[in-house]
């Protein structure tokens, strides 16, 4: 129970820091203010080729404050929570607010929307693995990978991370909310080599709960298999073909959806999904929803970064866009109400259409299964999508050979409409979770 005492002590510190910032803002004449403070700590160990490589102790604190003078605002932050630093940040924010412009949309969120219930979401599970045990675990993880296949010739190492933190957010409506959470992970990166050259891949496991991490040996083994299977990759010739994105990459496609329906992109008219609320954006089987109050999940929270209560809701239903992702600021710019998404989405999920990955590959028959994407070729304004890719060519529903040095291109609007199926192989390692996506057709560029 020592851990919980530490959490409670840290929570008291961040809460006090927020209260001090709000009091100071009031003293300097702010019409309203909001502040957040955090305290976190962690340990990272990495080993390479059976020996320790780095041992890093993390300990961070921060405070940020936004001060409003009428409809003008200024922000400042400090990297420590000492009273004089908090005072200095409030004064800096106030100074800035004297120079920014009147902005009709600026201000705190509606007080009626503040969260009033704070369920225990079971997010705080300290690991306290310690340097010695962390090193042993990382060594076991890497060793399992190195031993998995004679073609594994080198290692970029294995690492273990143990993180815990508390944050407080408060505003001059009188709202103050506390959050605490842990995040643990283990990863391994291995290099495979044959006469065609070297390939590197990795695998990781992550959870808020140490017991829910995958075993070290399984992580090492997965990393090895993923590196080895990329050896002797070929380039494809240029063609159009159906594409299945692995579950971990499909998360990026959902993130692109979130980017395009976020208030900031919408009020700036910088989105390919402008004015699409109520319109068909995906095929009719698609339901995408947000579920903020799930226990033990990465994106769980009872309130957003403005104190607004979060709710379970459908964002896409029957393929139709049901709602946007708004903060109070972007909502006012759009003449709408906040959706409780200041700071982003909370546990975004998509329903599977029921097929396993193997069934998806079988049903696709011939096409590309993409397991890695590189580069930044996603344009939120137009939806144009073109990224470097590696993966496998599929024929007769089976992986035939690895491919690399190709690009896949299309437009996200067409890709969303062309989503044929979503696999059952949900990747559970983040706030946004999905199974593999099968897209009807994209352009593959190669030799």
């Amino acid at each position, binding site marked *: 129970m020592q851990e919980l005492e530490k959490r409670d002590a840290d929570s008291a510190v961040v809460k006090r820091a927020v209260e001090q910032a709000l009091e100071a803002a009031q003293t300097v004449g702010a019409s309203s203010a909001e502040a957040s403070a955090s305290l976190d700590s962690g340990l990272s160990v990495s080993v390479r080729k059976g020996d320790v490589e780095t041992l890093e102790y993390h300990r961070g604190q921060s405070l940020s404050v936004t001060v409003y003078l009428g409809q003008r605002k200024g922000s400042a932050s400090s*990297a420590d929570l000492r009273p004089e630093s908090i005072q200095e940040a409030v004064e800096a924010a106030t100074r*800035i607010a*004297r*120079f*920014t412009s009147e902005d009709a949309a600026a201000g705190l969120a509606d007080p009626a929307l503040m969260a009033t219930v704070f369920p225990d979401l079971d997010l705080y599970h300290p690991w306290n693995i310690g340097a010695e045990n962390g090193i042993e675990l990382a060594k076991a993880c890497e060793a399992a990978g190195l031993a998995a296949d004679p073609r594994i010739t080198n290692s970029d190492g294995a690492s273990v991370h143990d993180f815990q933190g508390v944050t407080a957010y408060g505003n001059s409506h009188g709202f103050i909310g506390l959050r605490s959470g842990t995040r643990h992970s283990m990863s391994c990166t291995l290099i495979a080599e044959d006469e065609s050259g070297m390939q590197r891949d990795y695998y990781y496991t992550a959870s808020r709960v140490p017991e829910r991490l995958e075993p070290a040996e399984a992580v090492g083994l997965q990393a090895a298999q993923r590196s080895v299977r990329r050896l002797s990759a070929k380039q494809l010739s*240029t063609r159009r073909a159906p594409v299945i994105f692995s579950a971990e990459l499909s998360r990026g496609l959902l993130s692109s959806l979130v980017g395009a329906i976020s208030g900031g992109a919408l009020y700036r008219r*910088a989105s390919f999904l402008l004015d699409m609320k109520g319109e068909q954006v995906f095929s009719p089987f698609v339901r995408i929803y947000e579920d903020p109050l799930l226990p033990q999940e990465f994106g769980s929270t009872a309130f957003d970064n403005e104190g607004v209560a979060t709710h379970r809701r459908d964002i896409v239903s029957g393929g139709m866009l049901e709602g946007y992702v708004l903060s109070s600021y972007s909502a006012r710019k759009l003449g709408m109400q906040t959706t409780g998404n200041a700071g982003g989405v909370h546990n975004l999920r998509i329903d599977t259409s029921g097929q396993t990955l193997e069934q998806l590959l079988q049903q696709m028959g011939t096409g590309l299964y993409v397991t890695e994407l590189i*580069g930044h070729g996603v344009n939120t304004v*137009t939806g144009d999508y073109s990224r470097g890719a590696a993966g496998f060519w599929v024929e007769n529903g089976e992986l035939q050979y690895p491919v690399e040095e190709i690009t896949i291109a299309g437009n996200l609007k067409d890709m969303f409409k062309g989503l044929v199926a979503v696999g059952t192989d949900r990747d559970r390692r983040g706030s946004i979770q999905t199974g593999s996506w099968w897209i009807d057709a994209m352009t*593959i560029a190669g030799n």
Partner: protein
Amino acid sequence: MSVVETASAQLLAPAGLAVADLGDLLSRCMGPAIDAADLYFQTAWHESWVLEDGIIKEGAFNRDQGVGIRAISGEKTGFAYSDQIVRSALEEAASNARAIARSQHNGVQPVVGQAPAVKPLYPGVSPLNSLNENEKIDLLRAVDAEARRADPRVCQVIVSLSGLFENILVAASDGTLAADLRPLVRLNVSVIVEHEGRREQGSSGGGGRADYQYFLHEERGLGYAREAVRQALVNLDAVDAPAGTMDVVLGPGWPGVLLHEAIGHGLEGDFNRKGSSAFSGLMGEQVAAKGVTVVDDGTLPGRRGSLTIDDEGTPTRCTTLIEDGVLVGYMQDKMNAQLMGMSSTGNGRRESYAHLPLPRMTNTYMLAGEHDPEAILASVNNGLYAVNFGGGQVDITSGKFVFSASEAYLIENGKVTRPVKGATLIGNGPDVLRRVSMVGNDLSLDAGVGVCGKDGQSVPVGVGQPTLRVDGLTVGGTQAG
């Protein structure tokens, strides 16, 4: 006052510390199995101002400070940091860092040396005060007005101005004592244009290790506005990019991001020590066409990627990486250099006190060749002319890299014709420079916007090159065949 005196007055004095105490702190990191230790003190002041919808929408100020403590034993690194520069926190961090080698403090007393005189490459004063608040706002408004004046199809303009001043001091068990006062400013403009229901974006910007006056000189700020609008309008007329393998002409300046991704990362010391780079073991080999010479130069005055000293206190230098096509050098920090029997090249960089130093690039560019850029374009029958890029990325081990063109044109019969959008280029690092068939005489460096990410750490960098012709690069558009 010397730079070290200025830095220690700011960083150490408030904690009741002096340079003379650093030896004692370092000795707390040392032990029989510890080869080296260093202390990195840093304070950073950062501000940003954002104009959007024609109003000054946001301003933010941030102060961060702390100390990072590292102990090295062979290939092992112990690291701890504290965001409070007070003696007790330093002592705790030192003992945590030292835990990398499980041994007791044996009383070795490292000697903190004299700081060598290095001529600063930029003024050691905070850029945050180089304009007053009203002048900063006037600059933002002028840039906004210029973008809107440039074309009626401009419907959204976002202008951001940011300034950073860092004060760092490094002391190491090898006798290093060095300090640096680092200004960095940046101005960015992004615009959305809309015409007949079609929307496109354009962006431009620049900056360097200078103060805000930089943007007033030569109308640089207004120039970024005109450039952002020009790019957006080009994209309004752009057709879908072709897909397939073709000859590509890369414009001068920022397209040098190709060098950064395709070969730069592969020549960083850590990857080569570990044998995980596609360039591992290629030292002395012909890795590029004759006539191709690439350097990493941290000593260019005032440039975004430049540093008077790196984050380990080593003065930066100009390191030749590829000379006339032959691989001749790696970029090194102290630890990787030591383990490879080489010397640091002044490329040890870290995002902040809370991050470990790594071998990183500074300003990486290819030297000019002899060809007239017009003649290079005229030499291509059918291909792509890529003038501006967004980001790039590389897989160090397989050598595969990509980068995305934000402004590109078709070349048809030696003539630049229609603009194309959404083109991604993909290639193989150790192979791409062998395909360089013509090097232009128009070397230029980028305007000062580069950010490089590695192991989760971001640092400012510069890139540059002359116009290049690369034969047979894969272009990833949507128009097959």
